[in-house]
């Protein structure tokens, strides 16, 4: 997913001389093409993320569209106050591209896990939050990002994510994509867990439960129209996300359910901070309830 995003961005970089790319000393070989094409617009700013965000803001105030890259905790949590004030308050064309959403960094451990990023970014009024489900979507979002106005947070996984699509999807920022039309229950997810939800739905095929699957690739602004239609047509919406259970998409859906007097069930499957964080990504997902089997079991239980 990461390579797909930056290969596409590299083509945009060639076409648009306003694009500047900054990295906080991460992305081995990822940026060789950018540097070779135009070294005046690519900078490894060193291990100094707060400065990276300030630089991006100054560049953007002078007309540049700036992409900042790092691993999520270093990109989002370390310089969050610069993001809040310099980027978001001024509504600048800065794209924060975070790698390692959820447990993607596995055994690297809690320092590298991206677990609270959506919650933080949701508090910023101008920030658009997107999270592609696979490499094809990452390509599409890379394209769309260069035409978007205002700050964006782009939450990437890392590598070898299972494909959700077989070609680049025609998604639009702010418009949730319905991948399957089912009945009674809707699963909502984004990023890596979209394909896990798809597998969960396959496991339910013998149970006479046919959930819809909605890819909420844009977490903010939320596609209220589509979500409210789901409320109208389903007895339960279940949000599955590789993020802490507080403050993420599940919270956003619960808020909308409360505001719109949804009478059905809202259920949230997310990461439990009380559990272990030592293991490979697949192990950690499964141990936090993010496996097809456990999601299918949760659906069966709730729909019984």
């Amino acid at each position, binding site marked *: 997913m990461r390579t797909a995003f930056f290969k596409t961005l590299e083509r945009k970089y060639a076409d648009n001389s306003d694009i*500047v790319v900054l990295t906080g000393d991460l992305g081995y070989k990822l940026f060789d093409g950018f540097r070779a094409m135009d070294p*005046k*617009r690519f*900078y490894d*700013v*060193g291990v*100094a993320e*707060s*400065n990276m*965000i*300030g*630089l*991006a*803001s*100054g*560049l*953007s*105030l*002078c*007309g*540049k569209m700036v992409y900042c890259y790092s691993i999520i905790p270093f990109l989002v949590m370390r310089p969050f*106050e*610069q993001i809040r*004030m*310099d980027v978001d*308050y*001024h509504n600048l064309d800065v794209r924060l591209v975070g790698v390692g959403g959820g447990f993607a960094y596995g055994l690297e451990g809690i320092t590298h896990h991206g677990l609270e990023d959506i919650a933080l970014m949701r508090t910023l009024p101008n920030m658009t939050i997107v999270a592609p489900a696979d490499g094809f979507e990452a390509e599409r979002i890379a394209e769309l990002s260069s035409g978007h106005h205002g700050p964006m947070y782009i939450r990437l996984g890392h590598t070898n994510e299972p494909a959700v699509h077989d070609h680049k999807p025609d998604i639009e920022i702010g418009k949730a994509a319905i991948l399957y039309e089912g009945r009674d229950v809707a699963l909502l997810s984004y990023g890596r867990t979209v394909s896990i939800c798809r597998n969960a739905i396959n496991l339910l095929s013998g149970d006479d439960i046919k959930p819809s699957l909605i890819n909420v690739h844009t977490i903010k602004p939320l596609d209220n129209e589509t979500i409210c239609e789901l409320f109208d047509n389903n007895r339960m919406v279940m949000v599955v996300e590789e993020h802490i259970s507080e403050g993420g998409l599940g919270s956003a859906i619960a808020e909308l359910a409360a505001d719109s007097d949804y009478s059905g069930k809202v259920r949230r499957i997310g990461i439990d901070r009380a559990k272990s964080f030592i293991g490979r990504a697949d192990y950690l997902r499964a141990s936090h309830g993010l496996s097809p089997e456990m999601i299918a079991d949760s659906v069966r239980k709730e729909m019984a």
Partner: protein
Amino acid sequence: MGDNSGHDHEYIARQIRRTILDIINRTRSPNIGSSLSAVEILVSLYFSTLNTSPGATDDPGRDRFILSKGHACSGLYAVLAERGYFAEEDLLSFAVDGGIFEQHPNMDINRGIEVSTGSLGHGLSIGAGMALAARIDNREYSVYVLLSDGELNEGSVWEAAMFASHHKLTNLVAMVDANGMQALGHTSEIIDLNPISNKWEAFGWHTQEIDGHDFGQINASFAALSAEKPNAIVLNTVKGKGVSFMEDNLLWHYRSPDDQEYELALKELSE
């Protein structure tokens, strides 16, 4: 724009101090001491140094100024009004409900405020980004950033200092208003960075240290900027400068004068 004589600058500086006193007193706002230490540098910037003007606020080639020590904004507002960036009566909208100006600067390009500041440690990075944009775009402008000495406690300042030095951002000027005080006391007693100049030199900046209340030295320092390294100017100043009972007194980081103190201060600034 043309240079003005030191006498003109001093006349303007006295007027600016009276304006600061007036708007701080009227609104019972804090931070008068931090504004009074920065008057000469602000007057020099806006009346003889910056290649910008009230008619050029959207000129991409203009020089930029960032008040990274945003708490000294009453001084900036007073100077911008005096320089004609907005009408004097706009100053009546400082620090009032629904007004124009907060107690830290809010970006307002038309009124000459380039960026919102007030959280310390942000301004130099933003300035470095602006300076870098000039290089990318082959423009000639310079970016001037005024920091406080207490602000130098922020690690992000030194992240920016490293970047600017490595990339030889010669069009970036960091000015440190070294009034020797920070929020809870003298800088020497809290986090002692003295000698400050050595720090900037060690980070690869061309560094000058001058009397920050002496227009001759300020203007000479701007004339002696390096074309090979980013530039630091350490301004030795006095917090609360110009009002005897406010000078080097921490109380005036917080307090605003009462009516009697206002009259006393005004008298000193009118002599």
